[in-house]
Each structure stands twice: as C-alpha cells, then as structure tokens.
C-alpha cells in the first residue's frame, strides 16, 4: 500500500466534501438572488456585504430551531430519512473527475477520487437510493401530506430514471465507455458530447430536473397543494438536511451534466497555449466549475420561469413523451454507428 496515495486521497476527499458543501450553501444564496432579480427585487442584502453571510445566518437559524419529532411518527425512520438523503447526495461526488493530472515532486496525482470503470452506473445507483431518503421520511412522518409527497417522489423518480438511463445508453453507444474519466478524455478539445447527442442531452436535462425535485417537477414538495410535501413534519436541522440535500443534488447533477455532455474539465484551445501541465489542469478545473455554475444558473433560471406540472401531465411527459423519445434516440444512434462502422 502506497501511503502517499492514501493520504492524498483522504485530503482530496475532504476538499471535495468542503467544496460541495460550500457550493451548496452558496447555491441557496444564489437561488434567492436569482429569484429576486427575475422578479425585479433585490434579494438578501442585509447580512454582510451584498448579503453574503445570509447562508451562514440561515444555517445558524436552522440549528437553533426547536427539534420536533411527532409522537405518532416512527422515530428511527424519521431520523433515518434526512440522513439517507444527505449521505447519498454527498456520495455521488466521488466518481466525478474534477480535473486532469497534477504533478507534485515527480509523482502524478489524479483529480478524481475513484476512477470506477462503471462510474455512470454508480451515479445512478446513488441517485436511486436518494429516493429512499424522501420516501422513508414521508412515510415515517405519519402525515397525509407527507405521504402524498413521498408517493409522488417515488413514482416521479421511477418514471424519470427510465428515460434518464436510456438517454445515457445512447451516450454510452457513442463513447463506448461507462467510466466518467474515459468519457471526459474523449471530449478533448471541442468534441463535446452535446454536439453528438443533442436529443439525449435534452432528455437527460429534463430528467435531471425531475430527479433533483426541482421546478417545474417539484411535486414532492409542492407548497401550494401539500403544505411542504414529504418534509411537512420536519423541523430544525433535519429539515435543513433535506433542503441542503436538494442543493447538493443540484450541484452534483450539474457536475454530471457538465462531465457527460460539456466536456468536463476540457477547455477549448488549451493545447495551442503551450502551458505547463499543472497550470492546464488547474485552468481546466476552474473551467469545469464555470460550466457547473452555468448549469446551476440554468436550474434556477428554469425554476423561476416555469410553473409546476400537474401530476398527470408529469406522468404523461415521462411515459408518453420522454421514454419513446429516448428509445428512438437509442435506435437512431445504434443504426448510425452500425452503418458507419460497417463501411
């Protein structure tokens, strides 16, 4: 066992964890600002300069709130729900390649914690487990609204995961690999997958909105109908965990979308500049984060533009719209590659 690698991985793991939490924290701030700007308001601007300390104040507020567990709730599951939601949200970041290779003292360090050869499947597995956080929380609350929210979350996730998986199948046909590192490496330069899989990207994006429970697919929370949806009975930091998990999910899905379709840490025209490799890697990581922030902005932009779907519309779109489209996409991609590889 090589100790430097172990220490490096541990440190890097903590950095990623911190960055994830920090980005999620400031996503809440960003969301409030974006929402305000789109409604001709100013947004939070009292706590610190430009209201930059607002997330901190929110966090403190969440911690100070009274912790209430309803008497009729299942105590164990009630606590397990937000824990699962938070844990699975944080686990996904492990396989995402945050950058290229950094050379320190003649040794090469990869800016990816685990280069699984089935990276995409791992992401899917984690996202699917994330549903349990919501389902268990909604069920354990012993509240009709929470149960409704949980049922909706479960059915929504199942229907949209299908289309999402199929849009990825088409992507896997084009790239020929399930490893995220490999997929990013193939998109070197401007060979971004979005140019090869525009329809697949659109399907994946729509499903990502549904998977993260973001508007216009935020039916599990659905303030107007279900009070608070699955987290109706939650208070204090357990509620904070749920809300925070949503923002982490948003960050991670933005990272996944940027990795799969926008070339990850690849920067156009970086080879022509002739920079040393470490600089290239760092620039690439910065560019990757720029892409992620762009995606997060898109998430927010859509949320404050579109109204919520009705439940039957949601199911219609999923089963009658996206899944046939995804199947068509797979067929078209498959036929194209079958004939191009024959000739």
């Amino acid at each position, binding site marked *: 066992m090589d100790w430097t690698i172990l220490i490096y991985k541990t440190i890097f793991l903590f950095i990623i964890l911190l960055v994830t939490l920090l980005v999620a924290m400031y996503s809440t701030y960003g969301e409030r600002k974006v929402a305000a700007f*789109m409604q001709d*308001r*100013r947004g939070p601007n009292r706590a610190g300069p430009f209201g930059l300390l607002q997330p901190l104040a929110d966090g403190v507020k969440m911690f100070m709130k009274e912790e209430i567990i309803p008497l009729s709730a299942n105590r164990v599951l009630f606590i397990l729900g937000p824990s699962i939601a938070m844990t699975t949200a944080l686990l996904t970041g492990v396989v995402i390649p945050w950058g290229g290779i950094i050379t320190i003292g003649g040794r090469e360090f990869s800016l990816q914690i685990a280069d699984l050869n089935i990276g995409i499947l791992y992401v899917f597995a984690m996202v699917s487990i994330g549903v349990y956080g919501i389902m268990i929380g909604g069920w354990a609350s012993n509240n009709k609204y929470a149960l409704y929210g949980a049922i909706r979350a479960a059915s929504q996730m199942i229907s949209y995961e299908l289309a999402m998986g199929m849009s990825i199948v088409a992507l896997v046909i084009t790239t020929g690999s399930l490893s995220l590192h490999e997929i990013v490496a193939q998109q070197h330069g401007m060979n971004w997958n979005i140019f090869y899989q525009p329809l697949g990207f659109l399907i994946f994006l729509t499903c990502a909105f549904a998977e993260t429970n973001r508007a216009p697919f935020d039916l599990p929370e659905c303030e107007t109908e279900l009070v608070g949806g699955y987290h109706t009975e939650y208070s204090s930091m357990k509620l904070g965990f749920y809300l925070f998990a949503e923002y982490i999910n948003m960050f991670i899905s933005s990272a996944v979308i940027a990795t799969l379709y926008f070339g990850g840490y690849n920067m156009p025209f970086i080879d022509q500049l002739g920079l040393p490799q470490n600089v290239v890697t760092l620039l690439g990581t910065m560019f990757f984060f720029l892409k992620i922030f762009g995606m997060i902005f898109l998430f927010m932009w859509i949320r*404050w*533009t*579109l109204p919520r779907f009705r439940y039957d519309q949601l199911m219609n779109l999923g089963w009658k719209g996206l899944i046939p489209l995804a199947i068509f996409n797979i067929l078209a991609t498959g036929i194209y590659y079958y004939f191009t590889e024959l000739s």
Partner: protein
Amino acid sequence: MEKLTNRSRVVSDKKMTFLEKIYLPAIIKGMFITLKHFFRKKTTINYPEQKREFSQIYRGQHVLKRDDLGRERCTACGLCAVACPAEAITMVAAERKPGEENLYREEKYAAVYEINMLRCIYCGDCEEACPKEAIFLTDRIVASQYQRLPFVYGKELLVEPLDPDKRIDVSVRQTDEVRDFKLNKRFAHNK
C-alpha cells in the same frame, strides 16, 4: 362591450401544432422574459437608507399646532373627537387660569389630549372638523412599538415643540383655502 386594454386574448382549445406540443419554443420564450427582468432596474427601495418621497397630501402622525406666539391653539371643543369615525381621540378640557395666557390661546384648553394611534385610520376628518386650525396630519410615520400602550399618544408627543426651529411645518396643509373654509360659517362644523 368596449375593452379596457388590448391585452385580452380569446381562449381556444384548438389542436396544438407540433411546435406547440413539444413546449420548447414556449419555454425558451418564457426564459427570455425572465432573463429580461434579470437585468431590469429593481423596484425595491432599500428602506432605512432610502426613503420614498411622500405625496403632498400624505396623512401621517398628527400634530397639535401652536400659534406664532407659541400658544396652543386647541380649545378642547371636542369636534375632532366627534368627527373621528374610529373614536380614537379623547380629551379632558380645563379652564385657562389668569397668567396662563402665554400658554393657551383660548379661555379653554385641553388638559389631556390623547390619540390612540392603533385606532386611528388617518382619514383626516379631525383636521377638517377643527375650527381653530389646531390639529393637522403630517408626513411623519408613527413609530412601531412592542406594546400597545405606547401607541396612545398624549400631549407630550402631539403638541409641537416651542422651539421655533423644531416647529412642525404644515404649510402644505394649512393653506389659505383651508383658512377660508374654516372661517366660512356656512359649514356645519363652524356654526
């Protein structure tokens, strides 16, 4: 019937075309609308730092005016209390003693004059009813309180300060037209 605006559109449930069915053009159109608003001038006013300009006829906290010699104008006739639709005004009248001529203009004055700012609806009827041009509504805002009792304003808060520099300016409301109206015996309040 004549339309008020030209924005109304007749709703139809015709079959959607393919472009309408895939939603995307409509979504992108909507996103550009929100993006347009993103860069638009914000309508919010940062309240404690910036203050909105009041209208000329804004009706805020009352003032009990003194005349040019610094004497209270109020004679405790009670017309304001009668006119008040919210019954927010109460007063206790007292007779002016010899030697108090520099304090009160008339022979009778209000020993106690209270306005309950929680009851007051700031309609300005008291101002209209007053025959002595003693009470006016100003553009000052009634400060918020934690309890109800401090909202009952007594004379110490209502009567304007003696100091000529600290007088409350009501020249916007105390115009010549108001004076003529007050002196005109045709009106019920002045008979």
